[in-house]
């Protein structure tokens, strides 16, 4: 006996597993068919260590060809593609994400992620939570107030949500970093090496304020516009007219509207969560904040195919997990879907 809700969960699970395989396969394939010479690029990095020059190693050094063969063998790039894929996939699942070609000392990719992910999450989780809460509150307020508040509120929120993040952070840096000189102009805590030490975290917090403000502001714009639309939709529903005809006061009607409008926002929140793990590329790059976005830009710039396949697959995994959770959550938040739990399907 399987309830329709259980069947729904099983279907979803199967779909997401297939999607994950597809994503992993594409993340394995695409870096490899990308133009460029990843091994050559790594050898260059190796050669230029401490010399400060770049370019042309492969042509210049006669041993380069030998060295290249060595690297290819060492990383198993001479094996048939499908063997490479499955070896990589199994290792990925076991937590061995390979070695990054972006750095001369070939650090394990998973160590890089462990180092760059916390600053990103420290930036993006609070900003998502704050912008979600504030945005929903503002959106509902605009919809319930109506009139001038709504008109002015909506147009300012539309303006805020459409500001490009990289532009806003430049403006904020100019105001607070250059003009008033109260906040740092760039995100890296000086020449400190990323670690979990107290000093580093303190320095990070200081550098965290501006990108955090930027991303939160823009997020508030988006969330509030969505919430406003959902609340207005609820306010026009017939059950609202009826509740009013029975003399329920405005604040109760507002509560009903909010309760029903927040359901899709919960789902959207859960779905946004997956995207956090990729970092905010533009803001991190413009501000030089040491997060996943910065790591990704280094890895892409240095043609690090091992880094790419691991980090993209990691990001895809997190997005899929978040979407999966959102899909399941829907069933629990909306009684119309939840009903399936008690319904018996032969």
């Amino acid at each position, binding site marked *: 006996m399987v309830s329709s809700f259980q069947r729904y969960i099983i279907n979803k699970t199967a779909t997401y597993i297939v999607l994950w395989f597809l994503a992993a396969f594409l993340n394995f394939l695409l870096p490899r068919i990308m133009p460029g010479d990843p091994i050559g690029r790594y050898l260059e990095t190796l050669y230029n260590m401490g010399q400060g020059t770049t370019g042309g190693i492969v042509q210049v050094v006669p041993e380069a060809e030998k060295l290249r063969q060595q690297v290819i063998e060492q990383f198993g790039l001479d094996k048939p593609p499908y063997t490479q894929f499955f070896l990589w996939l199994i290792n990925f699942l076991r937590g061995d994400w390979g070695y990054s070609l972006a750095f001369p000392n070939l650090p394990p990719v998973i160590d890089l992620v462990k180092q760059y992910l916390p600053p990103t999450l420290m930036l993006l989780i609070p900003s998502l939570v704050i912008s979600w809460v504030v945005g929903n509150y503002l959106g509902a307020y605009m919809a319930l107030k109506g009139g001038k508040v709504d008109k002015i509120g909506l147009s300012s929120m539309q303006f805020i949500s459409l500001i490009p993040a990289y532009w806003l952070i430049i403006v904020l840096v100019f105001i607070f970093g250059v003009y008033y000189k109260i906040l740092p102009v760039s995100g890296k805590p000086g020449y400190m090496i990323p670690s979990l030490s107290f000093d580093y975290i303190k320095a990070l917090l200081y550098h965290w304020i501006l990108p955090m403000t930027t991303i939160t502001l823009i997020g508030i714009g988006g969330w509030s516009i969505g919430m406003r639309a959902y609340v207005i939709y609820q306010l026009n*529903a*017939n*059950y609202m*007219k*009826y*509740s*009013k*005809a*029975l*003399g*329920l*006061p*405005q604040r*109760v009607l507002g509560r*009903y509207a909010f*309760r*029903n409008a927040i*359901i899709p926002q919960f789902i959207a929140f859960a779905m946004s969560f997956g995207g956090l793990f990729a970092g905010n590329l533009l803001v991190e790059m413009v501000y030089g904040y040491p997060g996943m976005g910065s790591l990704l830009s280094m890895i892409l710039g240095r043609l690090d195919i091992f880094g790419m396949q691991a980090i993209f697959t990691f990001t895809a995994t997190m997005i899929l997990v978040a979407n999966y959770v959102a899909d399941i959550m829907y069933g629990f938040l*909306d*009684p*119309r879907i939840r*009903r399936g739990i008690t319904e018996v399907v032969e």
Partner: protein
Amino acid sequence: MARDIVSKAQDLRLYYILPNNIYVKAVDGVNIEIPRGGFLGLVGESGSGKTTLAEGLLYLIDPPMIKISGKIFYIRKREGSSTEYETIDLETLPQHRLDQLRGVELSLIPQYAMDALNPTMKIGSFIKDVARYHGRDVDEILNRALERFKLLGLPSDILNRYPHELSGGMRQRTVVGISTLLNPKFLVADEPVSNLDVVQQHIVIDFLTELVEKKIVETLLMVTHDLHLILEKSRYLLLMYGGHIVETGSKEEVWSEPLHPYTKMFLESIPPVGSRIEEKRIRGIPGNPPDLRYPPPGCRFHPRCPFAMDICRRKEPPEIEVRPGRKVKCWLFVDRKV
């Protein structure tokens, strides 16, 4: 006199505003006095403005419906007095006092009863809210709800159900129960049986009749196009056509001596109960009801009226009070009174 009237509208115009600034003149210059007490009927074809007028009488006016002109009064016994009545202008009443009246003294069984309930709220929770915000004892009201729901043939676990767990007919009966829960003095029932099968129709009508007979509901205004039902139950009729009230009077008067040509043709258009088709030819009214965006000038009924005169096409007919409570809006009766 005030004691005989429960609700009154003067020169009421309620329009719907469409996106391209076109008005639908759903209620266009209505003067009525709803008599106090008993089962009353507001009758008219679909699209004649019945629902708009019904909602207007309770001052349930929300965009896109707008009030162009007119006043709406509710008349009730002054608190603490058995003989004195007070007339309340619903428009000037502060919102919180209007909310206090709604559901308690003025109530509505809406036409959209099928989706009148909050989809994410159990029936019981909603009733609790209604009781709580009207300062009633929650348990007492819940018990009363269970009794009433039983009379309406609803299952006993209904308070723990969500609206989507009920059939359409059950939802409609639930709304009938909730709308009458606080024993409103003046209840407007807008097509309360339209989506029900015959058995359920009887249950609802008997339920409402009992409330009226026991004086739990003082005045019930039934909005419907079902003439059979109205002729059987109600003591007083208001006939509506094209946004106007065309005739009012007690059921006997209207039935035995319809004045307005529309009323005559409307009454002829229904087969008498028990008649066989060969015995009496059913006659419809030729033509179509007016488009309320562009109503005809003069009398709204003149394009379909066999007695239409020149003046009917040019000037809106006045309301003629034939007897107290007996009115007709037609040029044919102008000279009779003079």
